[in-house]
């Protein structure tokens, strides 16, 4: 041991055993029971005063009734492969690599474990189960007989024509070679309007349809759901992840996660989700391992909030002030 290191070691602070301090009476059970009664009363008062939000989910028939042009455009986009889900990548398909966390393709590594072919699974297969509609049957036959390039050409042309039409109204689309796409998308709107589309997407292969992956991907591909959410201040750039409908607190404990989406470079990054997740994992690890991180673990010594917590003890032990 050198002369220089010896005093440093002696100066190292050792926290004494809490069981060797003078004690005072403390009724833990009474404290817990009183706390429980107070929490129950507070909960009942808050629930009675403010209730809780429960706005109905948007059904696909509501979507068809309220935004028929959006349904037509979404169905056409699925056929053209231009919707978000069609070009998503893992875990739904291989249309894209997905987001990167630096050099790490974590999304790709997750794999395609929930396969969804947007055109086939979300539009064509549900329509193929419709019976008694000769025009639809003929349109589907024409679609299935065409080459992949021809299909894409028809759907892309119709999608462009829809986006150029006033309000995306299919009745006002300029004439062109769209093949069977107008008939297919119109039949899709009809099916959605009947309320039969949900069942066709969730429980066509199983009586118990507990998995809403397909209908949620479908409605998220349209703009109506997002429009409704933004009208309620739930958009991603409106701190939406932590809010809920109405004047309710939502999930304020997610403020830091949501915060990163509001600022650059995350806000405009193509890898925003991966970057925010990576950063939050790093920060969470920092919080978890705080006792071992020099500097950070000393902050409570530098900013003496603890003087308030233990003010009685420091008053009785002035040499520690």
């Amino acid at each position, binding site marked *: 041991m050198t002369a220089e290191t010896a005093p440093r070691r002696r100066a190292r602070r050792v*926290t*004494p*055993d*809490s*069981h*060797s*301090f003078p*004690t*005072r009476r*403390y009724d833990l059970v009474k404290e817990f029971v009183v*706390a*429980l009664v107070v*929490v129950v009363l507070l*909960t009942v008062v*808050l*629930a009675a005063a403010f209730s*809780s*939000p*429960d706005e*109905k989910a948007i059904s696909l028939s509501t979507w068809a009734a309220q935004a028929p042009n959006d349904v037509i455009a979404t169905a056409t986009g699925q056929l053209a492969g231009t919707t978000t889900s069609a070009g998503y990548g*893992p875990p739904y398909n291989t249309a894209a690599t997905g*987001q990167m*966390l630096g050099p790490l393709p*974590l*999304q790709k590594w*997750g794999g*395609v474990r*929930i396969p969804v072919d947007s055109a086939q699974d979300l539009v064509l297969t549900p329509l193929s189960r419709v019976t008694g509609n000769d025009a639809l049957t003929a349109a589907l036959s024409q679609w299935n007989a065409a080459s992949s390039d021809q299909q894409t050409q028809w759907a892309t042309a119709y999608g462009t024509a829809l986006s150029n039409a006033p309000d995306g109204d299919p009745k006002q689309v300029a004439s062109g070679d769209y093949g069977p796409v107008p008939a297919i998308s119109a039949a899709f709107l009809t099916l959605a309007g009947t309320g039969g589309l949900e069942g066709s997407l969730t429980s066509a292969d199983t009586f118990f349809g507990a*998995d*809403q992956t397909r209908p*949620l991907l479908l*409605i998220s591909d349209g703009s109506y*759901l997002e429009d*409704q959410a933004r009208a309620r201040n*739930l958009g991603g750039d409106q701190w939406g*992840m932590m809010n*809920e*409908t109405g004047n309710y*607190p939502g*999930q304020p*404990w*997610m403020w830091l996660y949501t915060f990163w989406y509001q600022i650059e470079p995350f806000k405009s990054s193509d890898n925003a*989700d*991966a970057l*925010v*997740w*990576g950063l939050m994992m790093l920060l969470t690890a920092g919080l978890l391992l*705080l*006792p*071992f991180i020099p500097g950070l673990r000393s*902050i*409570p*010594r530098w*900013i003496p909030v*603890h003087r308030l*917590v*233990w*003010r009685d*003890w420091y008053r009785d032990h002035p040499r*520690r002030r």
Partner: protein
Amino acid sequence: MTATEAEGGTPTWTSRTRDRVSRTVPPGQWLPDRQPAYVSSWIYVFGVVSLASLVVVIATGVVLAMGGVNWWHVSSVGHFVNSLHLWSVELFFAFMVIHLWGKFWMAAWRGNRQLTWMTGVLAFVGSIGTAFTGYLSQSNFDSQWIAGQAKDGLNAVGVGAYFNVLNPGQMLLWHVALLPLVLGAIVVIHVVLVRRHGVVPPIDAEEGDAQ
């Protein structure tokens, strides 16, 4: 010397378990009726009140679960129980965050209490995950929108391939069974560690202060 050795018998699995439990938290430390004199501040209340809130969260959640997925959408009683569940969760988080900040400013990891701090952080993170799956299980507009938004974050890091937020059946089971079990176990370990090590002494207190 363990109780088994003192009795002079061959150790059994039962006696070893009993000895292990006794070593972890010695008799008298489970429910002591005295605390160190420095335990004198309102900040100490927030640990207990967080625990009490968790009890109310679980109790109201159990009642909701008994009614089934759609009960609270069609019944005024069910809706009130849902409101109780929601507000108890809000209180639980509010108290837990105050408890966490309090323990930070007290540097409560001192004196070999690092694991106590770490289990507390894990309980906090686990609670966020549990609450999140609750929001996904509401089967209303909120869960519809939150699921659509959340999938992108989870998919971006490969988690969504296994933890599918668009599948309310999977989310509900995580919410009512898996996550509460994990969270409950973490909280039990946290409380055991608190009782084992006792309440952290004031910063700069020294051996001479303990008598």
